[in-house]
């Protein structure tokens, strides 16, 4: 009797009513579906467009080959992989990219780890302020370090004004001025804050009882590190490695500035020169290769998350680690290392750039050579403070990066919400992975694809090219990975219970979001906004193709200044970016009492 009851399906109408009531009470399905559609369009479509341009004849080549534009061709693949110039376009840059990515990542991880150890676990001088100072390099545009490096180490190989060392009579050798060594160092110095943040975060999360247990069993501090803490940091290390490698693969400004003079090409600069020399097909193939690297990283990440489960600490409360008391003998060099990294990676570049803006002639340290002219104007030049271009681009940068960041933060939390509310469903997995994909695409390739897609009205989407909407959109998509990562981890932490408690008490979806989840996720939202904002403020490669007169950003404006030969104004603009970002980060940290580290979420 009961069996027949169970096997008889309820009538369709009843099932539909049930489904409807579920959708109403659990709108996460609707949210998830809408997000999935939006992401499919905004993330997958540009990727498909890149794929398309890799196999479609460009106009120029079509004219030469007597074909029509858009015809299917594999000539770009051949050119990249097997032609006589494949070695120059692809294989050598590939090797160089690998070398640079490997060493830069290793160094960045090493710096990040050592500094995180020093700052979280020892009593070096100024450890609390260092926690902030050491992430400053992350807030500077990526060309800042390279520019500063060139300013100091430039030798006669490239002309123009002499480097500071050269001006002092010391000629730096080529290998120190250009090529792999400075690229690796500059990249490591700009990406270590990532590692530093994640390691500090992870160290603070590790239950101090795990260390104490080892101490009572006779482990000396170095053994505690070697046998307990470092192994526990393996998952963090892996994700830091992946994130950093992904970043270094797509990085452009640094190898462009430091590699070109000695012909040291990476895949990203090869992609750039392909675009510049009018070979978008070749550029697309290179973008695909970079993208494939990215996908490989993503798969590796998924695999690791699954396989490093056992590292997740069992229960326990993470106590505040008592900083190790270093002897004076150890405390001095340890503090020197931490402060040294700050001086080299953040203070130095800022100082060098600042000096360049107040010196009439570089490298001449005479009082008469100093002037505030570049800031206040005069000598027939505009100054920073009265340049309409800078003010306009500052406004643009703030409003464009600002609105992109806010949208990104909200979307990121929505992705997190849908992923957490729909555990195990394919929708959840799709959202999680697809929202992370843009992280792995080189910005320039993405921008080109966006231009292709959105120059034309498509369906309900009007032609966006030339409007700030397109800039906002491309930033939202590109920085979504940061926001969705922090959104997912924040939603995971809160779990479903608080919302379900509200549901039981009769709170509708809207009330649950505004009264329960919203307040709970305030800090998460802020961090999900800060990261995209910082990136947006310093973004160059992504937007350089999309800006039009009137929508210039600070970064593109600084490029224009370089074009006009106003190096000092360019540096001043970069300084403005750095200072604005730093102030905003400080402000947000003060207001929300949260840190950047929380947002990266491991």
């Amino acid at each position, binding site marked *: 009797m009961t069996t027949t009851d169970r096997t008889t399906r309820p009538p369709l109408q009843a099932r539909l009513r049930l489904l409807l009531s579920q959708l109403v009470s659990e709108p996460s399905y609707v949210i998830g579906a809408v997000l999935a559609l939006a992401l499919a369009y905004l993330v997958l479509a540009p990727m498909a467009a890149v794929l398309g341009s890799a196999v479609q004849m460009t106009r120029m080549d079509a004219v030469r080959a007597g074909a029509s534009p858009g015809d299917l061709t594999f000539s770009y693949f051949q050119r990249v992989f097997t032609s006589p110039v494949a070695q120059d376009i692809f294989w050598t840059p590939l090797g160089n990219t690998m070398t640079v990515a490997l060493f830069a990542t290793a160094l960045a991880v090493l710096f990040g780890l050592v500094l995180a150890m020093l700052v979280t676990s020892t009593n070096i001088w100024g450890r609390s302020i260092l926690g902030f100072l050491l992430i400053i390099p992350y807030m500077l545009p990526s060309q800042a370090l390279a520019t500063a490096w060139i300013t100091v180490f430039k030798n006669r190989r490239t002309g123009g004004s002499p480097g500071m060392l050269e001006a002092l009579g010391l000629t730096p050798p080529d290998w120190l001025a250009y090529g792999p060594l400075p690229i690796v160092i500059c990249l490591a110095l700009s990406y270590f804050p990532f590692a530093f943040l994640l390691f500090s975060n992870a160290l603070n999360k590790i239950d101090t009882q795990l260390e104490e247990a080892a101490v009572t069993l006779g482990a000396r501090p170095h053994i505690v590190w070697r046998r307990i803490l470092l192994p526990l940091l393996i998952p963090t290390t892996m994700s830091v490695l992946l994130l950093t490698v992904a970043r270094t693969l797509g990085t452009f400004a640094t190898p462009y500035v430091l590699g070109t003079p000695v012909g040291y090409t990476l895949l990203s600069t090869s992609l750039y020169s392909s675009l510049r020399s*009018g070979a978008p097909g070749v550029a697309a193939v290179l973008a695909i290769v970079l993208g494939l690297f990215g996908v490989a990283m993503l798969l590796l990440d998924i695999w690791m998350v699954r396989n490093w489960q056992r590292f997740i600490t069992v229960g326990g409360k993470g106590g505040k680690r008592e900083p190790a008391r270093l002897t004076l003998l150890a405390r001095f060099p340890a503090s020197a290392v931490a402060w040294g990294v700050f001086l080299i990676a953040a203070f130095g570049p800022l100082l060098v750039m600042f000096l360049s803006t107040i010196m009439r002639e570089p490298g001449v340290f005479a009082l008469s050579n100093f002037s505030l002219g570049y800031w206040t104007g005069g000598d027939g030049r505009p100054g920073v403070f009265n340049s309409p271009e800078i003010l306009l681009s500052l406004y643009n940068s703030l409003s464009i990066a600002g609105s992109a960041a806010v949208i990104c933060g909200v979307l990121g939390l929505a992705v997190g919400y849908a992923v957490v509310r729909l555990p195990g469903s394919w929708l959840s997995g799709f959202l999680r992975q697809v929202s992370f994909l843009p992280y792995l695409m080189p910005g320039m390739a993405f921008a080109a694809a966006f231009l292709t897609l959105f120059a034309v009205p498509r369906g309900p989407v009007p032609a966006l090219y030339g409007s700030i909407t397109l800039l906002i959109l491309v930033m939202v998509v590109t920085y979504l990975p940061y926001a969705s990562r922090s959104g997912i981890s924040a939603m995971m932490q809160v779990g479903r219970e608080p919302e379900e408690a509200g549901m039981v008490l009769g709170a509708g979806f809207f009330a649950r979001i505004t009264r329960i989840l919203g307040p709970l996720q305030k800090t998460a939202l802020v961090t999900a906004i800060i990261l995209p904002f910082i990136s947006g403020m310093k973004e160059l490669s992504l937007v350089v193709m999309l800006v*039009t007169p009137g929508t210039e950003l600070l970064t593109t404006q600084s490029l224009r200044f370089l074009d006009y030969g106003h190096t000092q104004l360019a540096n001043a603009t970069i300084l403005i970016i750095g200072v604005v970002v730093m102030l905003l980060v400080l402000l947000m940290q003060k207001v929300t009492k949260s840190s950047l580290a929380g947002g990266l979420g491991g």
Partner: protein
Amino acid sequence: MRFNQAVAGIALATAAALSSTAVFAQSAEMDALIAAAKAEGSVVAYWHSSRVSKAGEGFEAKYGIPVLGTKMTDAESTEKVVREVESGNVQADIIGYDDGPRLVTELLPGGFVENYVPEDLAETIPESSRDPLVYLWQVSIFGYNTERYEECPISNVWQLTEPEWASKLHMLDPRLRSTQIQAFSAIEDRADGLAAAYEELYGKPLELTEDNAGLEFIKRLAASKPILYNEDVEIAAAVGARGQEAPPLGLYTLGRHREIESKNLALGMCPLTPFQGINQPSYVQVVADAPHPNAARLFAHYLLTEEGAAPWTADLGAYSSNPDLTSNAGNPFPNVAEWGDSLLVSDNARVAERRGDLLDFWITNNR
């Protein structure tokens, strides 16, 4: 001396401007164009040169029509214009462009831009500059350091390929600058001259390992590993900086010599056989379906007048394609035509055909 030159230049320019306005004032078409342009209100220009902003200021002062000029590379402006026109969402009105081959094979045949030659100037402008319309010729030269050398240390381009000058020529990167490939094509066109120059220098005929003497030269030049740049500002500074024991030679626009005083450089021009530089045309084209077509045409016209060309032609080594206009008094020749054979001039169609191969040829030999 310089002051006098400047005054003279301004006086000439003013005179020319006055006379030309006097002529055009009679032209009813010109009046109609000006009226239509003013009705359109503004011009958006994608330009190969940042000086478009200066020209724009002059244009606005004269006609009250603001010019929104943005400097961008040819690749960028091509990308943008093609997509804008294809999507029917055209932002740009007019482009300033270096990549002649691409212009004649892609943009013009594809209907993305229109070649507009102002009627009143059609007769004045030499035929070679008319289709597509050149508004500017810029001379690039081989330069040397005058502090270290009394005269140019070489006299023949083949010497650049000698071991002594390996990695001592500074030039623009052919992988980034299409103009260099155009020069290579012109070098190929001048293969015979190169072969003769070789024999003249070494007293024996050139042994070819490539199809022609032009390719042979490019090959040897590539193999001697010149230092490559994105911008030629830096090249001139590298060559002309004072206090160098072994300064390099450079291939850069002659206009850089204007900075000899302001940047305290020691620069001189090398008179080489069989060519001493490149004559590079820059084109102006009106974008198809431009939102402000008349303003764009008026701006194109303006660029061919004394005041419109001045932002460029006030400099050394830059000439308007309008031969009636003055050029910098410091130029070796007052008119571009007088440089004659000493400069390389490329053929757009041939470059379009050969550019891919030439680029690959350069890349493979530059390893």
